[in-house]
Structure formats: structure tokens, C-alpha cells
């Protein structure tokens, strides 16, 4: 990764200068592996404050401005389960090349309340500075106190602080102004733009001179999207027409993104009375020809489980997204975890095939959701996208997608192509029966939650029963043949092999890179599809590594257990995190 030339050097009187540490080698030896990350190749900005102070909005505008200026970003958000008050953060890591993960340490702390400084001052890097309200009269050496009262009304102080930070790192004021306009709309931007101008003017007047972020000429156009938005848009591009949901963190914004697109894209999004209704509605809509998605979290999914089983036996396509958060029960409603792997793998009474995708990046959120729709339609059953709170809210930059080139699923087959009499559950070699839709031809479509005959009517014929079970399970062979192999990166036959799945992808990759620079041979094996598991795709990597470490955000090592169950291989070490925060490269290196 290219080094950013942004040492943020003050040339001002008053001793606020921050010398960039040129030689960190000695220190690094002292501090061990973590110190590698001290050689900062990116800038970390953290905006902190209470819920309701507009830190997400300011953060989003900042992030968008950075991407439009040509930088790569990675956003981590933390917040409490409340509407006002508490302590929330919006951290942006900025780099010139693709930023894979969050990084600990803060270079610019934007404090929307004073508590933020007390909570985060210890995380400030050597060059770290604090921007906040001048009335607090802080004694920190790199304190930039703004006389915010003179900037404008309190509502806009988030923009004021963000504007100063944006100016300090050298973002073009016009780029930030445009991002404000695009976010609020022209009419509602006026006050924010005024205050932005004041921030930039103030900065000029202070005669603070900085080494800015490098200017990137003609920045390529890239998207700024979080995991949930990518899932929603991926779903639309795949042919989604229907979504039923019951609001639940962290998945509500999937439905919200769809609602925002509903008029333009001719979608029906319905807030159901409960999660049970949500999944049953989606199954009903899908049976009648509208590909559907059901976004929820662990607790909501618990209510949907009978519906999963219903989709399986009626062979009805449905895509279920589970944004994980810490349980059991209500747990930590707005924090992150990877604790539902075992639940999602086994949810639903009876035996039936399924696929479980676990996106590791925003791009994967988009494309694996598409894949889930394709599989759902092709294999006629429930398919899963397993993400988590961290990824759901994490804004990143993403290459634009050429929508024209993407194929969309077509629900149901051609009524004129089926053998007569039409049998909804006709026995076939691959287990896939021709699926027609009701009302579109004279064929009658009979679907049943009981064990049923080929024509869909309930049966107690016990010699037919195993045949129907086998027919459904044969679809699993097809699903298995399409499994996305885990992504291997790094050295072959490594000293250390990291295994990870889902949202920890970037953190593990970066930890592996850091560890490799310490002359170890390091590999990383990442699973973005966690079920079915095809050992032939990866077992060699496990066997050829000296030490295999499974990294996951749960206490019991659910993925390590799954590997053992499916391959017999026992990982030597687990790195687990279950305090509700996302895994960072530093966390991994600290726990080696």
C-alpha cells in the first residue's frame, strides 16, 4: 500500500507541532507485531458524539467527499441502542489504495461532545489531533478548539467540525459542498454550505499549514455503499420484486433501501405484523412469481424458522438475510458478532439442502446476494446471506457495476414446455422439478407443506416418502457443485494460516500482510460461502500449514467446529472476539 504523504505538520507557533516519527523500527521491536501498524499508511478519522448530533450524516458526507477525491475508505460505526444521547462513533480509515479493514488509533478526532475526547484521547496517534468546541478549553497539546458559536447554529456544528477536518487534510471545498448538496438536496443545503464556507475560511485565517493528503488527479468514479445497501441493490439487480420485513437492527436498512427504490423499480415492500408473517408473505409472493427477500437478525430469524422449513418442502425460492448481532435473545442490539452460523446452518425442522453465503466485502454483499437469488430460483428453496452489524453499516468505496450486463432471475418456467399432466413435484434426476406459477396457464400449481405426491397433494404413502426426501436432497448435489471455493492468499505451506469467514475478511488479510513482513510465511483462507462445505477445495491448505488459526467473532469457534465436523481437521488456535466490536488487524496480532 502506498504511503500517504499526510504527516499533518503544524508550522504554527505555540508548540502544537507534531513530528512524524521517521524511524519507528526500535519502537516496533519493543511493541511487537502491533507496532507494524504504527507505521501508518493511512489516516484514521473518528467522529464521536451523542446520537442525534448528526455524526452519521457528517461522517457520510466526509466519506463521500474522500471517495470522490479519489481515496479508498473503510467506515466502522458503533452506536448504542437509543435514539438520543449515549456515545456513538463513525470512523473512517482513508488510504490512497484499497483500504481493506479498519485500523486502531485516531489521527483526527472530531469531538461533537466533550465526552468523546475523554473516551478516545488514549487512542490518538503521535500525530493525532482533536477538533472540538473551543469553549471546552482542553489542555491536550494537539487541540484545535473552534469558536463554534461564531460559526453558526448548533444544529450545524457537525458540518463545521467536519469542514475544518476536511480542509486540514486538503479536501477541495467544492467536493465537500457537492457531497452536502447531494445528501440534503439543494434546498436544504443552504445553511450547511454557509457553515462549510466558514470552516474553510477559518482554516485559512489560522495560517495553519499542513501537509495534505496527496492530490489524486482525475479520480476514478467509484460508489460509496454500505453492506446493507449493496445487498439491497444486488437483490434488485437479481430480479427482486418483493420484500416483507419486520424492523430489526441491523437489517432494517436493507428494507429501507428497497423502499427508497420501490417506485422507480416497481417493487412491493411490505412491513409485516411480525417475522412469521414476513417470511410467509415472501413465500406466498414467490409462489405466485415475485422473487423475494426477507431481511432480519437472529431474533427475528428465530421466529421465521418454520417458514424456512415451509420454503424447503414446498420448494419455493426465498432469500433470507440475517444480519448478526450478539445474542442470546436481545443481546446487544446494535453491536456486532458472528454468533448465528450454527443457527442458520441448522434452522428449520426436517432435512433439506441450503446454501449460506457470508460476504466479506461490499462487492460480495452485492454479488453474493445475486448468487443467492439465482440459487433460490434454480434449486427452488431457501438460501441465506449471513452478514453482521459491522458489515451492514460499513461504508466502503466500490467499483461501479455495469447493471446492463447483469442477468436477472426469471421466476417460474414456460407453461408450454412441461409434460402433461403437469406435476409440480415431478421426480427428476437432479431433483429440480419444473416450477410453474399459478394463474398464468391452465396448469394447476399445487404446493403443500405435508409430504406430498408428485402432483402436490398430501400423502401418507410411506414408500413415496423416501423418494421425495431424496428428490429434495438431490438438489443439494447441484448446490454443492456451485460452491464458491474459499479465497486463498499469501504463502503456500505457511508457518501460519488464518482461516476466516464473512465480515472479518479485510482484517485478516491485513493482519496476514503485517505478519508476513515479520518474515514469517503466512497464508489466509477466507470463506465467503460457508455452506455447503467442500473439503476438497481447501483441505490441502490446512494440512500443509504449520499452524492453523481460525479467526471469528464469536465465543465458541463455530466455524472451527464446522471445519472439524466436515473435514476432521482440528485447528490449532482460535482467535475470538465477542465483546460486540468488530475484529481489527491489531486485535488479531495482539492475540497471536
Amino acid at each position: 500500500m502506498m504511503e500517504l504523504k499526510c504527516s499533518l505538520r503544524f508550522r504554527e507557533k505555540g508548540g502544537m507541532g507534531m513530528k512524524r516519527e521517521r524511524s519507528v523500527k526500535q519502537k516496533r521491536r519493543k511493541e511487537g507485531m502491533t507496532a507494524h501498524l504504527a507505521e501508518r499508511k493511512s489516516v484514521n478519522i473518528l467522529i464521536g458524539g451523542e446520537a442525534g448530533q448528526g455524526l452519521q450524516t457528517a461522517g457520510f458526507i466526509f466519506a463521500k467527499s474522500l471517495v470522490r477525491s479519489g481515496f479508498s475508505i473503510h467506515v466502522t460505526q458503533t452506536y448504542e441502542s437509543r435514539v438520543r444521547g449515549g456515545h456513538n462513533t463513525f470512523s473512517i480509515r482513508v488510504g490512497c489504495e484499497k483500504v481493506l479493514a479498519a485500523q486502531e488509533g485516531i489521527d483526527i478526532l472530531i469531538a461533537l461532545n466533550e465526552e468523546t475526547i475523554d473516551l478516545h484521547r488514549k487512542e490518538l496517534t503521535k500525530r493525532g489531533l482533536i477538533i472540538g468546541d473551543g469553549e471546552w478549553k482542553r489542555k491536550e497539546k494537539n487541540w484545535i478548539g473552534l469558536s463554534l458559536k461564531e460559526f453558526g447554529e448548533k444544529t450545524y456544528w457537525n458540518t463545521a467540525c467536519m469542514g475544518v477536518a476536511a480542509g486540514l487534510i486538503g479536501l477541495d471545498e467544492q467536493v465537500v459542498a457537492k457531497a452536502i448538496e447531494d445528501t440534503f438536496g439543494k434546498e436544504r443545503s443552504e445553511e450547511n454550505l454557509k457553515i462549510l464556507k466558514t470552516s474553510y475560511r477559518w482554516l485559512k485565517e489560522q495560517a495553519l499549514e499542513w501537509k495534505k493528503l496527496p492530490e489524486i488527479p482525475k479520480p476514478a468514479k467509484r460508489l460509496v455503499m454500505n453492506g446493507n445497501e449493496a445487498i439491497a441493490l444486488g437483490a434488485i439487480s437479481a430480479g427482486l420484486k418483493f420484500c416483507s420485513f419486520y424492523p430489526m437492527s441491523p437489517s432494517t436498512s436493507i428494507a429501507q433501501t428497497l423502499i427508497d427504490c420501490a417506485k422507480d423499480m416497481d417493487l412491493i415492500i411490505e412491513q409485516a405484523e411480525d417475522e412469521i408473517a414476513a417470511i410467509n408473505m415472501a413465500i406466498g409472493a414467490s409462489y405466485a412469481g415475485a422473487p423475494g427477500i426477507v431481511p432480519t437478525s437472529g431474533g427475528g430469524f428465530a421466529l421465521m424458522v418454520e417458514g424456512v422449513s415451509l420454503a424447503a418442502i414446498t420448494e419455493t425460492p426465498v432469500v433470507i438475510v440475517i444480519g448478526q448481532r450478539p445474542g442470546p435473545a436481545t443481546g446487544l442490539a446494535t453491536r456486532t458478532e458472528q454468533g448465528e452460523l450454527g443457527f442458520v446452518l441448522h434452522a428449520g425442522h426436517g432435512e433439506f439442502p441450503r446454501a449460506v453465503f457470508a460476504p466479506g466485502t461490499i462487492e460480495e454483499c452485492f454479488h453474493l446476494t445475486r448468487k443467492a437469488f439465482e440459487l433460490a430460483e434454480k434449486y427452488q428453496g431457501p438460501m441465506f446471506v449471513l452478514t453482521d452489524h459491522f458489515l451492514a453499516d460499513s461504508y466502503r468505496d466500490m467499483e461501479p457495476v455495469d447493471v446492463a450486463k447483469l442477468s436477472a432471475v426469471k421466476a417460474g418456467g414456460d407453461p408450454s414446455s412441461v409434460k402433461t399432466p403437469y406435476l409440480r413435484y415431478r421426480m427428476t434426476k437432479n431433483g429440480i422439478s419444473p416450477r410453474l406459477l399459478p394463474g398464468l396457464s391452465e396448469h394447476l400449481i399445487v404446493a403443500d407443506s405435508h409430504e406430498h405426491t408428485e402432483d402436490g397433494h398430501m400423502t401418507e404413502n410411506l414408500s413415496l416418502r423416501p423418494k421425495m426426501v431424496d428428490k429434495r436432497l438431490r438438489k443439494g448435489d447441484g448446490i454443492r457443485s456451485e460452491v464458491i471455493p474459499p479465497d486463498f492468499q499469501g504463502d503456500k505451506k505457511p508457518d501460519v494460516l488464518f482461516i476466516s469467514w464473512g465480515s472479518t475478511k479485510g482484517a485478516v488479510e491485513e493482519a496476514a500482510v503485517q505478519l508476513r513482513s515479520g518474515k514469517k510465511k503466512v497464508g489466509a483462507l477466507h470463506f465467503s460461502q460457508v455452506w455447503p462445505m467442500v473439503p476438497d477445495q481447501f483441505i490441502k491448505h490446512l494440512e500443509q500449514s504449520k499452524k492453523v488459526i481460525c479467526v471469528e467473532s464469536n465465543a465458541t469457534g463455530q466455524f472451527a467446529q464446522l471445519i472439524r465436523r466436515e473435514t476432521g481437521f482440528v485447528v490449532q488456535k482460535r482467535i475470538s472476539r465477542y465483546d460486540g466490536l468488530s475484529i481489527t488487524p491489531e486485535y488479531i496480532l495482539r492475540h497471536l
Partner: protein
Amino acid sequence: MVDINDYGEYKTAWCPGCGNFPLLKAVKTALVNRGLEPHQVLFVSGIGQAAKAPHYLRANVFNGLHGRAVPVATGAKLANPDLVVIAESGDGCVYGEGGNHFLSAIRRNIDITLLVHNNQVYGLTKGQASPTSDSGFITKAQPEGVLHFPFNPLAVAIALHAGFVARGYVGLEDHLVEILVEALSHRGFSLVDILQPCVSFNRVNTYQWYKDRCKPLPSSYDPTDWEAAIRLSQQWGDEIPVGVIYRNEKPPFEDHFSALRKGPLVGQELERVRLAKIMETYM
């Protein structure tokens, strides 16, 4: 022209003399009277002896889970409003397990016809009390008699200003057919609570019991009078009014979705140009 034979004859898993038999016949007759072909109709049912009914006629069928007929029917109707969607199940399935869905379907005014086989008892699980069992009704599971007050589906539906609320009795077959035809013609949510004896597990609410009590409403009755309907819905005991008790014309749920102005969701192509425009807003 469609006739009753188009709807077929099937062997059933019902007890001889079950109230479901005349009910099934009345449903078929009503469909024929409406001129509906089997492929235009979708039956969605839950679980219970009543929920098996759609297996005993020719039509599109989705036989789902206990309590969940209504949300499946709602989803199917939204995906393809051209389908005539009938949700059909028993009193336990609809009013007990599916209570929340019942309330929400009324509030949505989704254009489905909900047929509830109401025999005031659980049949398939062998004789426990149902939400509509009268207080004091003795069963194996409620040996001291039912301690709950009975659920009054008509009063609840009328209280929520449902689109169409009716009660029928299988012993008044022609009358029931008339009600069903009206329910099928109604645009918006319609509830038909159909009294039908369970000959195996309900020794109180028998054919004779209902016959002595069920009285069709006079033709002078005005079902658009909400207060009269509410009063009528409280009548139970010596005299049980049957007929269309409440009507309230209002736009059905699916009329509110712009996506459906082009026709059913099924078959609508992905608008790639519009999606590309949306994607651009993320730049």
C-alpha cells in the same frame, strides 16, 4: 362455461357426516356461480381438518403451515392480483395460531376471501377447546370446562371496519352459497365465518343445535350500518344471525401499489436503465 365437475371429486380424510362436506360443495357451487375457472383461483390453507379442503377440489393450492394461510395469501395476491385468492382454514388456525395475521389482513384490506370453518373445537388434534369454544365447554384438555371467554371474530372484524363480514351455516346451504358468491365478488378483505358441526369431538354444537339457532337476516337489514352490525355481532345463544352482517367498500390494499399498475409483478422485466440511475446516486 365452467361447471361443478370442473372442480372435481376427491376422496377425503374427513369423518363421515362432517360439516366440511356441505361446506366444500357450497364453495364449489359459489365458484361456478361466479364463473371462475379452476386455474384462476388460488386456495391457501393452513393446518387442520378444514385446511385439507383445498386438496379436495381442482384449483391452485398452497397448503402451508398452521396459522399462516393469511400471510401466504397476502403475498400471493400482491404478486399477482389477477388471482382470485381464497384463504381457507379452521377456527383454531385462523383465530388462534394466526390471530395477529387475521387482525393485520383486516387492517390491510387485502383483497382475499377468508373462509373459516368454525366448529368451535380442535378436530385434528382430537377435541381440545378452540378460540371460539363457548365458556364452560368440557373437553379432555379442559375437564373443568373452558375458562376463557370465546373469541368473537365478527365483532373484532367489524370493530376494525373490515370490508366484508359474514356468517354462514352449512345446514343452510343455498344461503351459504349466496354469501360466498357475495364475498367472492367483494373487492377487499372479506371474512366468512362458517358454522359447521364437528361430529366427532363437539357433542354440544351439533347440527340440531345450529339448526335451532341460525336465522338468516331479513332482507331489510342494512349491512352498511356499522353500529347495527356491532350490536348484531354480539348476538349468540338462542338466536344466531347468519348472512352478510357488515359491508364497507374501500379501496383494496393492492390498489395502493404503483408497481401493480402495470399488472402482476410476475413477468415484469428488470428496468436496468432505472437501476443504473439509482446506482449513480451512490457515486
